[in-house]
């Protein structure tokens, strides 16, 4: 095992009480983006068309990118670019809901269901999307070499390697968020059901469920997990250990070639517990992934609410349904305090890639300062990727982008630790992102 450097951030929701999920009624309207970091799907509906929840609204011709399914029943009103949580405008399908809660199930065809091929096809069809950004779609990553479509192998030789480690990650991505810890407590059954399925699909040598050392678990959880042939791996509470760039070296002892390469290149598959639960729901009950769990966090009041909503619910509509909605937030962050995106409005669809929304009050706002780097070395001490963020930030600040690239700029995973610890309060992540975007622009132009 290989621990990474990082940071223990004390006090941010260390303890999660088993709050469970609050299920909210079907919203009046949903917005379903069709574009993702992996690629985009083509719309298969037209404005004015009636649709039922669970039916396709967008599919990929090559069936590589998971399809988009309607999360509510109703009428497609328009297909239009819509602002997304990360500040882009993505082609999206807007559906006016008719209030029907029924969801069309995936076809379950009897006893042949337990074969890995059909399980894999079902996972690919269920429309499951993940919070973490991975290089390949879920179904591609999970497939053992014999199940991998041969057409992919020339592009991704790592898929030829057998899966040594299957890692089901129950640790939250960042301090201050408790989505996954809550999911383990609230939906233990689905998680345990997913383990045999995943073992069958990946043919993994070792199956691990990673948790924090002092995490609250359902009763007798460890014994149930080991009876399924899996292990609980108790990890320190270091951020960003729960991100793949931290967890893969920690479990396998091998570094990823580059921060964006997939874990399969070192013989590991990683997915988080909420994805595993969606897989179990799709395979056991034929329930397509049309819901998303979102944590509403208000640090000022110490309040956190876990809700389950239909995918594509607008933040605005979600807030209107909450009895104790946050009052006058000064900052609204989708995606958590370290990795999230600040929003300028509330008409943002909450998708499966969203796990949390943080509302900060005016007193909690942090201010970056245009101060020089004093070379104190705090960022070097904590950088999980072993970079020298202070140097990189200066290089980017003064326009030496090539030098920054040589010093490892593109190994930065933007975890935000350097900004968090910087005593001079420099906007470290912003400077590094600026350098990356400039370098990408140069590469595109040439």
């Amino acid at each position, binding site marked *: 095992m290989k621990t*990474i450097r990082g940071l223990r951030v004390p006090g941010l929701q260390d303890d999660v009480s088993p709050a469970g999920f609050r299920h909210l009624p079907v919203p009046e309207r949903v917005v379903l983006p069709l574009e993702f970091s992996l690629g985009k799907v083509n719309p298969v509906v037209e404005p004015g068309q009636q649709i039922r929840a669970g039916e396709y609204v967008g599919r990929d011709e090559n069936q590589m990118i998971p399809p988009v399914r309607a999360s509510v029943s109703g009428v497609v009103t328009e297909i239009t670019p819509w602002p997304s949580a990360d500040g882009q405008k993505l082609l999206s399908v807007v559906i006016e809901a008719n209030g029907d809660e029924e969801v069309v199930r995936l076809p379950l065809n009897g006893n042949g269901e337990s074969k890995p091929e059909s399980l894999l096809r079902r996972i690919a069809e269920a429309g499951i999307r993940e919070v973490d950004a991975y290089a390949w779609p879920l179904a591609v990553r999970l497939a053992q070499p014999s199940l991998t479509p041969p057409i992919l192998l020339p592009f991704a030789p790592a898929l030829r390697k057998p899966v040594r480690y299957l890692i089901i990650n129950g640790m939250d991505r960042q301090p*201050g968020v408790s989505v996954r810890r809550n999911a383990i407590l609230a939906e233990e059954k689905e998680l345990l059901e997913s383990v045999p399925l995943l073992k069958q699909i990946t043919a993994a040598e070792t199956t691990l469920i990673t948790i924090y050392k002092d995490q609250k678990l359902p009763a007798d959880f460890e014994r149930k997990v080991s009876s399924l042939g899996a292990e609980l791996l108790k990890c320190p509470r270091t951020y960003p250990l729960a991100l793949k*760039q931290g967890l893969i*070296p920690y479990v396998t002892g091998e*570094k*990823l*070639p*580059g*921060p964006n390469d997939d874990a399969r290149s070192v013989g590991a598959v990683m997915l988080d517990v909420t994805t595993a639960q969606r897989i179990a729901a799709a395979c056991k009950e034929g329930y397509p992934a049309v819901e998303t769990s979102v944590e509403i966090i208000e640090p000022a009041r110490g309040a956190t609410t876990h809700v389950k909503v239909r995918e594509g619910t607008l933040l605005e509509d979600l807030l209107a349904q909450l009895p104790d909605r946050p009052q*006058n*937030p*000064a*900052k*609204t*962050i989708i995606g958590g*305090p*370290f*990795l*999230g*995106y*600040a*929003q*300028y*409005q509330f*008409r943002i669809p909450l998708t499966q890639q969203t796990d949390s929304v*943080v509302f*900060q009050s005016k007193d909690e*706002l*942090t201010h*970056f300062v245009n*101060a*020089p*780097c*004093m*070379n*104190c*070395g705090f960022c*070097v*001490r904590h*950088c*999980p990727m*072993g*970079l*020298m963020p*202070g*140097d990189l930030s200066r290089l980017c600040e003064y326009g030496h982008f090539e030098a920054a690239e040589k*010093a*490892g700029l593109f*190994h930065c995973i*933007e975890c*935000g*630790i350097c*900004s*968090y610890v*910087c*005593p*001079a*309060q420099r906007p470290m*992540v912003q400077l590094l*992102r600026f350098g990356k975007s400039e370098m990408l622009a140069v590469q595109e132009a040439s």
Partner: protein
Amino acid sequence: MKHPELTVSVSPHIHSGYTVARMMYENAGALIPVALAGWFFFGWPALKILALSAGTALLVEWGWEKLFGPPANIRDGSALLTGLLLGCILTTEVPWWIPILGSLVAITVGRHAFGGMGNHPFSSVLVGWAFLEISYKEILETYPLAEPRFLLEASEFFSDPPLIAMKDDLESILEVPWSELFFGNVPGTLGTVCVLAILLGGAYLLYRRIITWHIPLSFIFSAWLFALIMWQVDPEVYAPPTFHILSGWMMFGAFFLATEKGTAPVTPLGMIFYGIGCGVLTIIIRTWGIYTEGVPFAILLMNGATPLLDRIKPGTAGRSR
């Protein structure tokens, strides 16, 4: 619908709350035992010197900020720290204008001429001190006798600082118990004599993680090892290693001067090499140099090597570079 009341910024959206000012004031707080030891052995003039140097440093920083603006900043405490450190490496015998002149040079030439905090290549404290040492050698090297306020008796072993005694007559230091050096009951500069007080302050710096162990430990250990080798070669000519690390500015330099932010490397391996360089150079200068104290020049020389040492990068967490 736009919401003008919503603040938008890049991630991350939280900060540890640990600022430069807090670091500097905590660093200055670590000097409290050192200042008390100065008062204990040399009386009220010790505090007068510290007040003069710190006050001048603050005044100069304030003036610079008024004239030229940022990055000069009197509120971040860095000027206070520089002033206090400079006071610690002066004797109580110096006239009132020595700490004032030293602070003036440290803040203006040592720091702001190079572009302010974090950008000066050489320790601003030692730049101020080196200016005084070169200009007023006689004044700076007049050492008062240690006169403990209570508990301890005035030492009968030394009339000069231990390092001068070592150069004059190696025999004379051999019978001195190490405890004399450890408690600091010897003539010398006001902040550097008491090893116990410096270790207390250094432990606080380590505890607060303002500094890491790399520089002080490699500094002291490499000096000890190098002196041990020389001592093994010929104990008639060279002083014992423990004498070297307990005397002079060794401890103060390792914990407070060599670790000045911005002038020391930041990578673990770089810090260790930097410490080794400081330690070995110190013993070389002390043994064969014309100066009695090697620490300040060793640190200034290694400050110059810091940009090179910072090229020793930690292993990037990816196989391809």
